[in-house]
C-alpha cells in the first residue's frame, strides 16, 4: 500500500519570499480618488495596527508589552500607514506606551481625517 508522501517543510528563505511586504500590504488601502470616507475608519485602522504590531486581530485586546512590541517604531509605522492610506494624524496622538492595547490605537486612528 503506497504511503502518503510527506510534504517538505518550507525553509526560512522560502517563507520570507512568500511573505507580503509591509508596503504591499498597505498599498490597496490607499483610497481611490473621490472615495466618500472622510475618516480612516475601523477596518483600515485594524489592518494598519495589526501589521505594525506583527500580530493578528485576535490580539487586538492585548498591550504592546504583552505582544513584545517596541512602541517607538510601532508609532512611526502606524503614522506612515495612516498617511499612506491618504489620511492625516498628529504622531503624538498615536498612543504607544507599553500598556496601550492595540484596540486603543485603532480607536484613535480610525478618526484620522482625510489629508
Amino acid at each position, binding site marked *: 500500500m503506497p504511503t502518503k508522501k510527506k510534504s517538505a517543510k518550507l525553509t526560512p528563505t522560502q517563507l*520570507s519570499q512568500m511573505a507580503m511586504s*509591509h*508596503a504591499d500590504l498597505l498599498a490597496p488601502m490607499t483610497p481611490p480618488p473621490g472615495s466618500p*470616507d*472622510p*475618516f*480612516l*475608519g*475601523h477596518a483600515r485602522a*485594524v489592518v494598519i495596527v495589526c*501589521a*505594525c504590531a*506583527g*500580530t*493578528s*486581530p*485576535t*490580539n*487586538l*485586546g*492585548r498591550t504592546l*508589552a*504583552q*505582544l*513584545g*512590541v*517596541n*512602541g*517607538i*517604531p*510601532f*508609532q*512611526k*509605522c*502606524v*503614522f*506612515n500607514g495612516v*498617511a499612506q492610506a491618504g489620511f*492625516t*494624524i*498628529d*504622531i*503624538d*496622538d498615536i*498612543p*504607544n*506606551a*507599553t*500598556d*496601550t492595547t492595540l*484596540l486603543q490605537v485603532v*480607536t*484613535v*486612528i*480610525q*478618526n*484620522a481625517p482625510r*489629508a
Partner: protein
Amino acid sequence: MDPNNRRHIIISFDHPPPAASAVDQKTYWIVYEKTAATPKTTATKRLEVDHVDASGLASPEKSIDLFLTEEIAGKPTIKEVDIVLANATDFITLPALTKPPDLGTGTSGAKGPVGAAKSRTDSDIYFNGSYAAVEGGPPVYNIDAFAGYMWALQKKDDFYGRVGIYGQATTKMSSTADPNSFQIYLDYQNVIGSGGWWGPFQGPIFNYRFLGTEFNKTANELNLTTSPMLTIPFRPVAPPPYLNSKISQWPAFNLIMGTEFVDVEKSVLAPTGVWHARGLLGANFATGYAPKSKGFDSITLTSSWQVRLPSAPEIFYDDKFAPITPTTGVKNTAATPPMLGTQPRHYLDTKLTYNYAAWGGVTFEHTYGSLPPAFSKTDQTFTIGLTFSLQQASFGRTSILRP
C-alpha cells in the same frame, strides 16, 4: 464609534467572545447619549437600536456592530455615550465613551502630561531606591532615577523625529571610592525606515545625543559627550493568536550599538582637553507574567548589559587595589586609588520585580560593573528595595535608556 457612519457602533470582545445569542438582539442594547444643551446643562437622550450584526463574532476580531435608528450627535455638543447590555442573564454597563477618539470626534486622547506607569520600561519619570545591610560594614543605598521629555518634529504628514532632554542618575552609596554616575543630554531620535517589521526585527531607532555631560557626585570627573546610537528591537518569537492575557511582557530584546565621543574636561588622573571615542555595545531584555490577583499583580524580569570600549586610557576605580588598614587588616575601599586603562568597561543590571499592585512593588536587583565617568567598579551586588513610578502620557521616552 464609526466616524464615517455615526449610526454605527463597533463593540469588540476579548477572547473568549460571548455566544451570538447573548448579544444579537436589538432589545438587549440600551444606548444613551449626553449632549451639551447649554454651556451649563446636559441633555440625555435614549437612542434606539435598529439592528445588530453579530457576524463579526466569527471573525478574528470578535466584534459586533450596533446600528442605531439615528445618528449620534457630533462635535461640539456630544459629551458622553453610555451603553448597557441587558439580556436574559446579564446586565453589563460598558465603560462610558467620553474621550474624542471614543466619540468619533477626534484623535486627541486628552490625557494629562503624565500618568501612572506600570514598570520602569514605560516610565519617563522614574525613581527606584533600595537598601542593603552589610555585615561588618556600612549599609549600601542605591538610587536609580531618570527624567526627561521628547517633543515631536512634525509638519503635516512629514515626521522629522523627536528632540528632548534627559537626565539619569545612578548613585551607589557603597564603600567603593566614588561610584556615582550622572548623565544629562540633549537627544535627537528618529526611526530609520517605515517602522515596520523585518522578520523578527522592528525598524531600528537612531538616537543622537548631540550634547551631553557625564559627572560624578563630587564633580571631580566631568566629561562632555556627543554620541550616535542605534537601537534594534528584536522579538525572537512572535506571540500566538489569542495570547493569554496573563502574559504581561512577551520576551523581547533591544540590541544597542553606538559610539560615545568624549572630551574629558576634568579628572583627578586622566588627561584633559582631548577627545577620544568609546565603542558601546549592549542589549536589554524584558519579560513578565501578571495574574493581577489580589496581592500579586505581576512579576517582571528585566536585564540590561552594556560594554564600553575606550580608545584611550580612561580613569577607573577597582577596590581590589584598595589599601589595607594596618590596625584592622580590612580593606579601606573609600581610599581606592584611581587608575588608568583601556580595558572594556562592562555594566550588568538585572532586576526581578514583584508588584503587589500596578503602581508599586518590591525589587530584587543584581548589579555588576561600572558606569562613566568615574567607572567605579561595583562587584557582584544584590539588593532589595521598593519601586514607585510615573510615566509621560505622550510616550516620547528615548529608546536608549535601560528597561
